[in-house]
Structures are given as structure tokens and as C-alpha cells.
């Protein structure tokens, strides 16, 4: 909290925010019904429908069959050049095909049974929960997963590459560098911290988050921008500090009687 309070007045001027209002508004809407879709889907007119739909703020498909719902999702998923990630949300059994067709299927548990929920990736109780599911929890989880995945690969690559250097040093003789149990316990020693980081970590405090929301293109605090967004500590600071600590500790222990004194 103190950290945030101190930085707030100094770095507020460089803060820039990109709101959704930056995007040009789309004034058009499109309504298409089932009988029309039966003439369009599966023909050359499909591409024209897609182009028309892309120029609209919203497209409403009414009186459509479950199969047509699925085909609409498939048309969007495969027809656009940028390969968008699609999400389908529904509460009834007739929504099941489109929920399964989309990359992300969301089922609403309600009066129409639980078929949609059972075939979905995520289940919510009310439609209004979709917004926090996407914009809040989806975003949080993406960043958590990214950190955990990158770190998990990183630490195991370090373990392996050290062995590569060692192998080259001993003429590819196959000599083991580590005692076998210590070697095997590597992920026991290092597994829990990253797991709990993936559960409990927060980039900014409550105060800073409420008062200085940011996007990727903004820098709202010096240290956070260095450590989180620009990966400064990841690329330069961390290896340097590792190096310094390793050198000092190893030198201390091998060039003195410290360990004997301690023991």
C-alpha cells in the first residue's frame, strides 16, 4: 500500500488508458431467420453473409434449428481470415451442438434442464455472469497460466542444460553430476511456490487497481512497468542477481571454513 501511495503522484502523468470507446461504433444490425439461413448456409452466399455480418454491431439469428446454430458458429470460426476464438452460450438442449462447436462453450443452468451445462466448458447460473467470466476471470486465468507454464518449462530447461554443460566437460562419459535422490526431488523442492503463485498472486494492490487501471500499452508505475510489462527483471535483472548470489555463496563456502563452522 505504501509503495502504491508513493508512486501514485509521480507516475500518474504517464498513465494513458485505452477504453472500449476508442473503437469506431458500428451502427448496423442484422436479423436473419431459419428459413433464410437454410438457403444461405452451405452455399456460396455464406461468405457474403459473413462479410455483411462483420459490418454489423450485432447479428440476431431467430427461428433457427440446433444444426443451424452450429453451422453459424462454424462459419464464423473457419470463415474469417484471423481465425477468431468463438464462444457459444445457451441454456437448453437445442444449444448443445453450437456449444460443442465453439472453442469455448458456456452453459446456463436454468429451467430448460442441464443438457447445456453438461456439454459446456463452463457453467454459470445467470446470463449476466458471462461478462465477469470473460473479462475478469478469463483474463486473470490467462495471465496465471502464462506465468506457470513459462516458469515450469524454464526451471526444467535450466536443470537439463546444466547437465549438458557438465556432459561436455567430462567428455561425454555419462558421469552423473547430481546424487540421484536429490536430482529426482527437483520438482518437489520447486513445485509448490509456482503453484501458489498461480493461485494467490496479484499484480497490484486493491488501491492501485481501483485508481490506476491500465492496459498493456500504458506504464503506470516505474517498477511494475519494468518488472511486469517490459520483462526487465526477467531478462537482465534476474540473471544478474542469480549470478551475484551464486557467486558470493559458492565462493564463501568453498573458500572458507564457513560450512564447517556452521556444522
Amino acid at each position, binding site marked *: 500500500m505504501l509503495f502504491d501511495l508513493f508512486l501514485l503522484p509521480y507516475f500518474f502523468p504517464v498513465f494513458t488508458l485505452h477504453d472500449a470507446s476508442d473503437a469506431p461504433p458500428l451502427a448496423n444490425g442484422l436479423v436473419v431467420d431459419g428459413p433464410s439461413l437454410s438457403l444461405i448456409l452451405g452455399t456460396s452466399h455464406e461468405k457474403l453473409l459473413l462479410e455483411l455480418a462483420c459490418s454489423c454491431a450485432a447479428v440476431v439469428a431467430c427461428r433457427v434449428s440446433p444444426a443451424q446454430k452450429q453451422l453459424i458458429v462454424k462459419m464464423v470460426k473457419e470463415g474469417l481470415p484471423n481465425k477468431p476464438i468463438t464462444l457459444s452460450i445457451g441454456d437448453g438442449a437445442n444449444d448443445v451442438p453450437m456449444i460443442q462447436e465453439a472453442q469455448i462453450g458456456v452453459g446456463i443452468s436454468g429451467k430448460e434442464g442441464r443438457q447445456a451445462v453438461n456439454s459446456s466448458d463452463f457453467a454459470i447460473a445467470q446470463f449476466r455472469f458471462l461478462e465477469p467470466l470473460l473479462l*475478469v476471470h478469463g483474463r486473470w486465468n490467462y495471465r496465471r497460466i502464462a506465468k506457470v507454464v513459462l516458469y515450469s518449462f524454464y526451471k526444467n530447461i535450466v536443470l537439463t542444460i546444466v547437465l549438458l554443460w557438465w556432459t561436455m566437460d567430462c567428455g561425454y562419459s555419462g558421469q552423473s553430476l547430481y546424487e540421484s535422490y536429490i536430482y529426482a526431488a527437483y520438482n518437489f523442492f520447486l513445485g509448490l*511456490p509456482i503453484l*501458489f503463485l498461480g493461485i494467490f*498472486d496479484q*499484480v497490484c494492490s486493491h488501491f492501485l487497481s481501483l485508481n490506476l487501471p491500465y492496459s498493456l500499452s500504458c506504464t503506470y508505475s516505474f517498477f511494475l512497468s519494468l518488472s511486469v510489462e517490459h520483462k526487465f527483471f526477467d531478462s537482465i535483472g534476474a540473471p544478474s542477481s542469480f549470478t551475484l548470489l551464486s557467486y558470493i555463496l559458492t565462493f564463501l563456502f568453498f573458500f572458507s571454513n564457513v560450512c564447517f563452522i556452521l556444522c
Partner: protein
Amino acid sequence: MVKDVLADTALQFQTLYSVGLNKTDLNVRVMAQSFLQACGDAAILYYLTLGCFNGPGMANGGASSSPGASSPGSVWEGDTGEGYGIWVFGTAVYTNMVTAMLMKVALLHNSWSTYAFGVMAFSVALYWGFVMLYGSFEPVGDGFAATWLASYEFYYAP
């Protein structure tokens, strides 16, 4: 439960969602960068420890002495190519590696909770406790009647 911004903030400024849409945190470039960094860090950790371990010992032909003494020994004893204290050296590398990885996790943290502190402390205690205990005792004898004696030299490595 990582929260880089609060729920209200994410809802209010929906462009924050572009982090996932643009795949900024996890993509091929970021992963390749991470892999390269891991290779570099591994080299630093290994050769730094090797340099410390050999140290002035190389000046007199790598003549060995007991680890922890004022003049350290060489991984390779003299010119014979025989290994000396390999597990001492290996465990020293390993200790540096575990320390570096824990530091990396510490840097990845954007906020510290009681759980995060507790788990970090637990991991440090787990490693040091394990190496100290495991390196201190060796079963001598058969089966359950084994006598445990302090013998492994890598006890001195961490």
C-alpha cells in the same frame, strides 16, 4: 487467484481483455525467449560454480584438498582426469540452481500473501533439510538393522 486488476476495473475498461486476445503473455516468441534465457542462466549457474569450485586449486595443478578448506579442490584431480568430489560440486551447482529458481519465483510474484511466504519458506526448508539430513547419514549394514552414519561428502556442499 492471480489478480492483476480488480474485477470492477476489468469490467470498466474492457480493452484489458486484449491481453488474452492478442496472446501477449504466452506465444511462440515469449516461449522461445524463455527457453533461450533458461539456456543462458544454466550456463551461468554451472560455470560460475565450476569456477568457484576450482578456484586457486587450478593454480597448483588442481591439487585436491578437502572441500570447505581454505583452498578448494578441483573437480578433476590434477591431470589424471579422475573425479574428485563430484557430488560436492554437483550439489553446489544444484543448490545454486534451486536458489536461483526460488528467486525467479520471488520475482514473478506481484503481490505477497501469507500463503506465498509460507510456501517459499517451506520449499527452502524442504531443500536444505533434505540435503542436510540425507547427506549426513548413510545406512551401513543390512536391512532394518542398518546403522546410520554421517558420511556423504556432499553434506558440505550446500
